[in-house]
């Protein structure tokens, strides 16, 4: 339903997207994950038809949106990263406004508005001005505005950035509900833990796809053995490991260190090395990799 081939976009000297290929053809939540500057926003804006690519083909539900960016707009719903609703208008007025822009018939619009307010739990705030809502409520309102015309595809640009943990969980519940109703959702996020909730994940880095697949696929591509180490002086242990293996095999996770090693033998050698330096290792266990470990490894391969 979404087909992208060789998508390129350049801003000045900065090649933001350097040839993205992507096909999403079932109703899933598809996460685009990557650090700031990876090209997530540009990709979603191009899909929403509000930015023109330099090169490439994009087909959304049979519409060539490179040739005609307007053609798929009535089937997609878009949520921008920055809150982009009129702050003076009330919650209900904002939703109603978008209902009219998408030419939702009046009778259906009212019914839909009622259901959206219920489902986003914004009902009690429907007469409040959008500018006076909390961060999480603003995102829910923006989502309602993007949903008023019952789109087939939802494009969400970092919907949970700057949103408190409870609202974040609520937003994801809403997304699962929508998925159950048969909406394809493309969501971008800088948070790896959040991307793990998605059915399929694309890792984006500096305009290139690092890896793609569901969580299991990605995990199976992890060729190293992953160890988690807790050490009294983590900082020093980190330096020792970097001295031995270079800086791309070890990452801090809070007070823990994740080590991506080639073999158990390597682990044992490293262990003695650290012990010889007089550092106490509290625990050192093999663990299953998370998305962030995979991302680090893919980054390493990309080099």
């Amino acid at each position, binding site marked *: 339903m979404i087909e992208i081939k060789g998508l390129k976009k350049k801003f000045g000297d900065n090649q933001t997207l350097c040839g993205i290929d992507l096909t999403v053809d079932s109703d899933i939540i598809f996460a685009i994950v990557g650090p700031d500057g990876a090209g997530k926003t540009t990709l979603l804006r191009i899909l929403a038809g*509000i930015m023109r690519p330099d090169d490439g083909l994009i087909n959304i539900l049979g519409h060539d949106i490179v040739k005609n960016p307007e053609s798929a707009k*009535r089937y997609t719903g878009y949520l*921008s990263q920055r809150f*982009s*609703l009129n702050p*003076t208008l009330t919650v209900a007025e904002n939703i109603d406004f978008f209902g009219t*822009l998408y030419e939702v018939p009046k009778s259906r619009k009212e019914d839909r508005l009622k259901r959206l307010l219920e489902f986003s739990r914004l009902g009690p705030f429907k007469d409040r001005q959008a500018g006076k809502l909390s961060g999480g409520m603003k995102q829910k309102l923006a989502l309602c505005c*993007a949903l008023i015309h019952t789109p087939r595809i939802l494009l969400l640009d970092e919907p949970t950035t700057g949103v408190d943990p409870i609202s974040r969980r609520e937003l994801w519940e809403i997304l699962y509900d929508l998925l159950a109703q048969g909406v394809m959702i493309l969501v971008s996020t800088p948070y790896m833990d959040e991307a793990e909730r998605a059915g399929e994940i694309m890792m984006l880095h500096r305009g290139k796809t690092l890896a793609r697949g569901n969580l299991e696929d990605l995990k199976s591509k992890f060729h190293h053995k992953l160890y988690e180490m807790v050490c009294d002086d983590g900082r020093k242990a980190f330096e020792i490991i970097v001295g031995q293996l270079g800086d791309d095999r070890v990452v801090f996770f809070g007070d823990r260190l994740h080590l991506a090693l080639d073999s158990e033998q390597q682990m044992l050698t490293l262990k003695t090395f650290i012990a010889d330096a007089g550092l106490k290792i509290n625990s050192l266990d093999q663990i299953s990799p998370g998305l962030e470990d995979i991302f680090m490894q893919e980054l390493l391969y990309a080099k």
Partner: protein
Amino acid sequence: MRYLAVMKREAITIARDIRLLLIVVFFPLLLLIIYGYGVTFDIKGVPMAVYDQSNSLISRELIDCYDASEYFKITEFTHSRTRIDELLINDDIIIGLVIPPDFARDIKSLKGGAVQVLVNGSDANTANVALGYHAAVFADFTGKYFKPPESITFPEVQANTRIWFNPDLKSSNFIVPGIIAIIMMLMGAILTSTAIVKEKESGTIEQIVASPVKSWEYIAGKITPYIIISLFDVILVVTAAYFIFDVPIRGSLLQLGFFALLFLANALGVGLFVSSISKNVVGAQIMAVLLSLLPSILLSGFVFPISSMPRVIQAVTYLVPARYFLEVLRGIFLKGIGVSVLWPQALFLCANAMLFLSLASVKFKKTLD
């Protein structure tokens, strides 16, 4: 429908913005009152000091001639020349009149008399006007004493001057039409460009351009409230001009409305052009002032007559819509003429409107980059 929705959204936004509402309603009236009362090019009661050394019946008669006219106000009778100099230096007076001791005798002997008139030339315009008044008063006075003997008759040549359209030369009669043009430029160009650029700057345009709304629906919906406000302001200002400043309306109101719409198209064209090339509100406002308000004041013939501008600047004024609108307004208000005479102005307004609107539409795209 989408057009109406955008319009409704903008109307609600304006209605809930108290500051904007105040600007829209009170600013035009304020402008009218400040300009109408304050900026008058009429000069009356020119301050004047007199040093009368003659101190005679005749010299007092001359002084009375000045005092009786409303154009001069004698603020001081001095007893020294140096005092006159002092008053001129301090800008207390514009004209100093020094009457010599022999004045009365000379007049009576019919050999002619002389007085000294000192004029403060630091404000050239006022000085010029004051000199003109002085010449008129003085000619009046000498006429009484130097009548040719009745036995000799000259064939008389007289210039009978009549001032048409504004017989009292009241400056409010031509300032007020100018203000109407300025207010419309202000509303049309500055407010609309601000309203559109504000959406770009704050990002509120992003989710709108992602919808199937068409560019023209968005733009038209966005500016319609400002068109209505501008027309409301025109009615407000014309009414105020008529009742407060007694500006005559000799032509047809319907034609006034027609030309106002034509001029509004120009103002909106400038506003849309500005909004299509600016990225933030401050930039847009500065550009809108430079492109709309300043030319409307300085290059339209409102303050400086176009005929006395350098050739190059005169050529530039052809692109200033206010220039034509001012001619139209003065024509309709004071001369009572209409399209039958003002059709060249109508054509130029049309051409300018098309130029600005097409410049704006070339630049206006429904994408973010």
